[in-house]
């Protein structure tokens, strides 16, 4: 018997107004141009299998956010994902690109999201609120 708790994967999808090939290429090669994170840092997905996902901060720190575990353009991309934390906190993110009317559907599935680092993620909103009050 195991005490392991089951957590449903997080799933999100979006329509994109371009071909599957373009969507895959823009998602990966130009990750740093669309990723809505901290604007002072740069972000990159190295576009090949075993490539790293890297954040570079203004002070020159390089932080590994994960790695490419499957690289199947233009169908599918799979990453380990642990932004701001070590690999103990890694979940898996799968991104699938499928043809639909007038473009492409991008579907993202995040499994083992519950391992994300609590101190950086979970109560971020709460801590932010506390700092605003203080």
């Amino acid at each position, binding site marked *: 018997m195991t*005490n392991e708790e089951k957590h449903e994967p*997080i799933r999100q999808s979006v329509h994109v107004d*371009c071909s599957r090939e373009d969507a895959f290429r823009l998602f990966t090669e130009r990750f740093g141009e669309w990723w809505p994170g901290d604007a002072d840092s740069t972000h990159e997905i190295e576009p090949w299998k075993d490539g790293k996902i890297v954040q570079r901060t203004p002070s020159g720190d390089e932080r590994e956010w994960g790695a490419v575990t499957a690289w199947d353009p233009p169908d599918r991309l799979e990453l380990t994902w642990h932004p701001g934390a070590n690999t*103990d906190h890694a979940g898996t993110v799968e991104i699938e690109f499928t043809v639909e009317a007038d473009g492409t559907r991008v579907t993202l599935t995040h499994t083992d999201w519950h*391992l994300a680092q609590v101190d950086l993620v979970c*109560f971020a909103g709460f801590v932010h609120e506390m700092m605003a009050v203080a």
Partner: protein
Amino acid sequence: MADRIELLGAFADPTRQAVLNLLRSRPSTVGELADRLPVSRPAVSQHLQVLKTAGLVDEERRGTRHYFRLNPKRLAELREHIDGMWRDALAAFSNFAAKESSGNDKRRKTRAYPTKRSR
């Protein structure tokens, strides 16, 4: 509802953060947590009490053993946070891709319809 200052205090200690991180994988007893952390059982017990009072952790009795687990409400908050993060990220990607490909269309159109023909 836990007091906010209490919650922030519970959360500020690195051992308590480590306990929370372990409990995310599975509910555990005091002994199991102590085995995986560089602190004694009584110290783990004390940290768990603080986390319980702050509403971050709850306790469940299974037979003669007491298991501690992350409060499901907190886990739901984490899920919501990550869900929202991906929603924002995919929306940003969709906008970016639309802009990029309409830029390409314009360039294609310029090439497709060259100069005005003179009669």
